[in-house]
């Protein structure tokens, strides 16, 4: 009995080490569109489970339904884990619960800011974003709360476009340092 309990403890520890190592490896897989944040920082990796001696089951979730990086991310995650010695590597995709920008880690937000992308604020649950329309003759650019410019920190900023270079970003500019910047939308 004692021997069994001991070997079970050893197995559990080994299993936890394997999972921790797999997460470490996945932290090196960068988002193809924003190559400073990892897929773990973004909250795309939902779960890592061991399978047999050296195998893994990794659960991913896409950000936007049509995000073209989804397939690239799956390929890179598989390749990186395989190169680290895991085999076989099975990826599954889950759509529920739906990805939210609230899952981006604090570290991920810092990395985004340093890269020149204003990180998302918290998602307002169950609340529609108010239309940004302002009557004629008034500035209609000022919607919601202004963001802090990721370059100079000023909050004298305005939105230029609700959509940007990727599905997850909007285009803003800073009136203080005169630089345009991107905003990762709360979603």
């Amino acid at each position, binding site marked *: 009995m004692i021997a069994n309990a001991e070997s079970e403890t050893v197995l559990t520890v080994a299993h936890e080490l394997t999972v921790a190592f797999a997460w470490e490896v996945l932290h090196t897989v960068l988002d193809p569109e924003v190559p400073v944040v990892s897929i773990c920082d973004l909250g795309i990796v939902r779960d890592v489970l061991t399978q047999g001696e050296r195998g893994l089951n990794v659960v991913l979730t896409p950000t936007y*339904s049509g995000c073209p990086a989804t397939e690239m991310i799956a390929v890179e995650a598989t390749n990186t884990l395989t190169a680290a010695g895991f085999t076989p590597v099975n990826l599954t995709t889950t759509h529920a619960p739906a990805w939210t920008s609230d899952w981006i880690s604090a570290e991920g937000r810092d990395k985004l800011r340093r890269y020149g992308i204003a990180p998302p604020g918290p998602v307002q649950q169950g609340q529609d974003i108010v239309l940004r329309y302002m009557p004629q003759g008034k500035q209609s650019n000022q919607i919601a709360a202004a963001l802090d410019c990721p370059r100079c920190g000023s909050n004298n900023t305005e939105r230029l476009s609700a959509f940007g270079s990727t599905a997850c970003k909007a285009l803003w500019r800073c009136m203080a340092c005169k630089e345009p910047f991107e905003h990762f939308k709360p979603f």
Partner: protein
Amino acid sequence: MQTSITLSNDPKLRYVLRLADTCLILAQRLGEWCGHAPALEEDIALTNIALDLVGQSRLLYALAGTMSGHTEDQLAFLRDERDYLNLTLVELPNGIRKGQPNDFAFTILRVFAVASFLKPLWQRLQTSNDAELAAVAGKAIKEARYHQQHAGDWVVRLGDGTDESHRRMQDALNQLWPYTTEMFNNDVVDDAAHDAGLGPRFGDVKTDWLAGMDAVLSAATLQLPKANAFASTGKVGRHSEHMGFLLTDMQHLQRSFPGGVW
């Protein structure tokens, strides 16, 4: 030429395809603006919305494929016209006034009308007894919300804008309005989906749709056109004269290079 697939009459399959096709065909029309929109920001916005819609349709085709035994690509590209089940509204050209094939007012109003329809539909589909459909809805509703906000903003700015922008937005509304009747005409497909717990009858979201439309149209100082007896029939496969042309564009690669992939 690649052989067309045919569909069964399974009403649950048809329910999912009505949704999937409506998303895909609207995306195809929005994609036509790529490189041609009135401003760079709008070019990016319209194609981003199209991308979301393509993403939603892919998830729905994957689900439909589990019912019909087809792949996403087969369902998207290898049906004949009568087997597409989208609302006629989304297949109309980007402008339906003669001599104006690309009308931004009509385009953005249509995005608004469809997003205002899909949003309450996704809302209810989140409690579908099909777990995958509920999951797709949970993602898609966030996207539809964003589309509705963006397009609604334009409808108000143009409707309550200059005399010329108001006139053109009202024109667009007059042209679009008759095609919205079809959204809410329930039939056996709606009833089957409802009875099976798959999703609401499309007609069940009419009140929510009208409320969403009304808030923005009245802020935009636009007049609701009078109802008439016309109702389009795209969701039962009887399409407008524009659908065949759209499909020749959309299916060209799969028909010419069967099985081609990126």
